[in-house]
């Protein structure tokens, strides 16, 4: 039965029914519904999987552009040469600020002349050292401009290890490909390699939530009361409301979030 016939019949019927109460179109639809349910479900599954593949596999490939570092760098080899570990090159300045990726000045002592015969070394000396040009390193862990991160507070005061956030980069023999988010310009290491935002290690992601996660644990440790359960927090709060000042809860300095104040990390 063709749809055309169906419809024509239906409309004729409708027109004849005096325009009163709604007539029932079900007579026809029932027949339509008898169509096989299989293809319908199949199409659903096809659509589902196609979009899942698009979202989980193709999308990240499109989202990130891959960039090579101007020259390669061997952390292992340099670590063997220095005495102070990471801080030998990634040091703190007099004023407490963190120097970040080394400047040419620091390399020039050893690399005035070409050391060895690796092509990267030759390129480094010829292209950069002798021309006095800084190497335009692509910084994997560069946070956006709105972030203020005090390395000294974490390393000197809290005694944290570089690895906690940066991973085992010091044990690498060459630099990995730098991936840049085409929309935001962020390094992929900020969001993390996993497009779904899952992480296994502390250094897998460098989003605000990762800072928060660690800080929450630290705060809990300091309080020595264990991680505060939601119920305990709520009870603390109720105590606070009923009789202010008596609650033992130690809150962060932010009135809004009761964590660290926003601009401790944002500028």
């Amino acid at each position, binding site marked *: 039965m063709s749809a055309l016939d169906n419809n024509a019949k239906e409309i004729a019927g409708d027109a004849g029914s005096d325009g009163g109460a709604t007539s029932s179109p079900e007579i026809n639809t029932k027949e339509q519904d008898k169509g096989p349910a299989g293809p319908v479900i199949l199409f659903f599954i096809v659509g589902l999987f196609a979009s899942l593949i698009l979202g989980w596999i193709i999308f990240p490939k499109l989202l990130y552009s891959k960039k090579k570092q101007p020259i390669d760098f061997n952390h292992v080899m340099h670590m063997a040469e220095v005495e102070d570990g990471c801080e030998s090159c990634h040091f703190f300045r007099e004023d407490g600020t963190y120097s970040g990726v080394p400047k040419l000045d620091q390399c020039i002592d050893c690399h005035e002349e070409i050391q060895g015969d690796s092509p990267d070394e030759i390129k480094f000396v010829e292209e950069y050292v002798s021309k006095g040009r800084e190497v335009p390193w692509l910084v994997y862990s560069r946070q956006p401009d*709105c972030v203020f991160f005090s390395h*000294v507070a974490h390393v*000197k*005061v809290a005694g944290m290890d570089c690895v906690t956030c940066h991973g085992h980069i010091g044990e690498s023999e060459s630099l990995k490909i730098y991936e840049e988010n085409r929309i935001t310009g962020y390094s992929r290491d900020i969001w993390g390699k996993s497009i779904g935002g899952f992480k296994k290690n502390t250094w897998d992601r460098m989003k605000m939530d990762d800072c928060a996660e660690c800080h929450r644990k630290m705060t809990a440790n300091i309080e020595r009361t264990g991680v505060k359960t939601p119920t305990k927090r709520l009870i603390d709060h109720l105590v606070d409301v009923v009789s202010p000042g008596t609650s033992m809860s130690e809150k962060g300095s932010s009135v809004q979030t009761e964590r660290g104040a*926003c601009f401790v990390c944002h500028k």
Partner: protein
Amino acid sequence: MKHKNAKKYGMVIDLDKCTGCGSCMVACMAENNVPFRKDESNKVLSITWLRVYQLTNGKPFPNTDICYLPRPCMHCEGQHEGHSPCVSVCPAVATDYNTETGIVSQIYTRCFGCRYCMASCPYHARYFNWWDPVWPDGMEKYLSPNVSPRMRGVVEKCSFCFHRYQLAKEKAFKEGRREIKEDEYQTACTQACPAGAITFGDLNNPNHAVSRMVKPDPKHHGRPTNPNAFRLLERLGTNPKVYYLSSREWVRRAGDNYLENEAKYKKTVHQG
């Protein structure tokens, strides 16, 4: 929620000394990467974190008097700590009150530009980026990395140069200290003021100059006990952390609204 060693940074501006020269305004703009446009004469569109107002006593010649009043963000404490007019209204937690320093922050990347905070601020201390900030070619070289330039469509305001606090902290940490000294953290306007009219420090610390100058009364939300000191719109209950000093009665009176025939300001405690 009082912290041990919690600070309450505040400012005292001596209006007898202030000459209205505008150094504080410019120092602030230079310190905080404040943008500028071709025409800045329309003051309701001109981003000036710290604005110097000219007050007049309204008397005819030759009894006229004028006084200049620099107005940074007041970093209001509100009736209970952190209930500043703007902080509680921000729908996205883009502005916050820090109980450790008493400073009201503004996070530009969080702000989505609803401008409710501007509506709530009786001091007009908040400014909106109506335009993209544009520096003439080459001039972006002087931008400071310590303060992020704001994008179009967000609100900004005075931060008491909080980045200087951060830098002072970093230095202290490097030197193995946890606390910073009074002179290690001073705002750009304080430093620049040629007349030395601005004093900045911790109001909770009785040894700091600001405390000695205004003698804040902790029982009354830091109301000044120095008879020459006053705060702007004291009766609204905003509890600003910026105090003014003036030996002139008319100037002190210009700091708040008074009913006609109201002999002296009655200290009403706001029920908020």
